[in-house]
């Protein structure tokens, strides 16, 4: 299954503020629900998201059980130089999912 959808402008002017949109596939099970025979469904959420721009952290978010399934995050950064944006989602068990996108700055 495709795990993440990333939307980063392919090109940007130096100094331009660009919007980055990320969508990741995850059930975000709260841990507060029970199944149809009454057993608690264990918590399974992404708890941290980090975006690195050429190795520098530009955005970080902590996620909690109230966040819906398939979390969508949109944020802004300043296009400083051409390079790669790396995205990392970390769940409660420290499993990570990664994705990356490149941006050309002129």
């Amino acid at each position, binding site marked *: *299954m*495709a795990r993440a*959808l990333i*939307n980063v402008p392919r090109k940007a002017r130096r100094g331009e503020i660009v919007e980055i*949109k990320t969508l990741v596939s995850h059930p975000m099970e709260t841990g507060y629900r029970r199944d149809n025979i009454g057993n608690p469904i264990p918590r399974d959420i992404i708890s941290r998201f980090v975006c690195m721009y050429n190795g520098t952290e530009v955005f970080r978010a902590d996620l909690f059980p109230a966040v819906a399934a*398939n979390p969508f995050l949109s944020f802004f950064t300043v296009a400083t130089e051409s390079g790669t944006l790396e995205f990392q989602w970390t769940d409660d068990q420290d499993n990570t999912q990664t994705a990356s996108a490149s941006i050309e700055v002129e």
Partner: protein
Amino acid sequence: MSEVLENLRSRTLSALLLPALSLIAPPASSTEIPAAQKQSDYESMSPQTRAMQDDDSVNPGMFWVLDGEERWGRKDGSSNLSCADCHTSESMRGVAARYPSFEVESQRPIDLQERINICRSRRQNATPFRYESKELLALSAFVAYESRGVPIQITIDERLNPFFDAGRALFETRQGQLNISCAQCHDDNWGKRMAGNIIPQAQPTGYPVYRLEWQELGSLQRRLRNCLFGMRAETYPYGAIEYIELELYMAWRANGLKIETPAVRP
């Protein structure tokens, strides 16, 4: 709310009068939505939910479409065939707009999910997917996605007629402890509010849909079960002919509206 109640009351009244009137004229379903007012349920959504559906990089339904695309090319079953070995994905354009359609072998209409499962069991010699399974939803979403923008085009021929009539009857018959019919909400009172939510026309243009309430993709049958449950009526088991009949009537009712799969709905 009082407006809705009034409408329900007037409907009850007309139901009482109907036997008398039917002696004079055949009972016309005067409540059907006029063609000019027919609209996708997208129109009654909030701007935020619309934005989610409009942008494929934001629409979570795309996870299932992409998964379906991958499965389309995957060989399976003892025939060791993939969907792509027989069909091009381009040839799927418009297919979803013609379903449910009549299946000769079983002599009854089938929906897109059943079509996929029939292909699996007869051509691939694989076990059919379970209803609402990730696999079946993904493949249905991918096939229906290929028809995005194609207007729904259902023609009711003689073979489909009895099923169509049964579907319409189901749609218009009061049922459940609340004793209401689908038509009372979706034909007579669409656009008004019930418990704060806008009542949509119930046009099945975007199935399988990503429903925010479910936080995942689901089929029209799942949605119908929700409605039946809400009416405090008994739900039919998945795959029951009653769902197919309802799906057939609803698809015909939506003729001309464009396929939006994967739609996002509240």
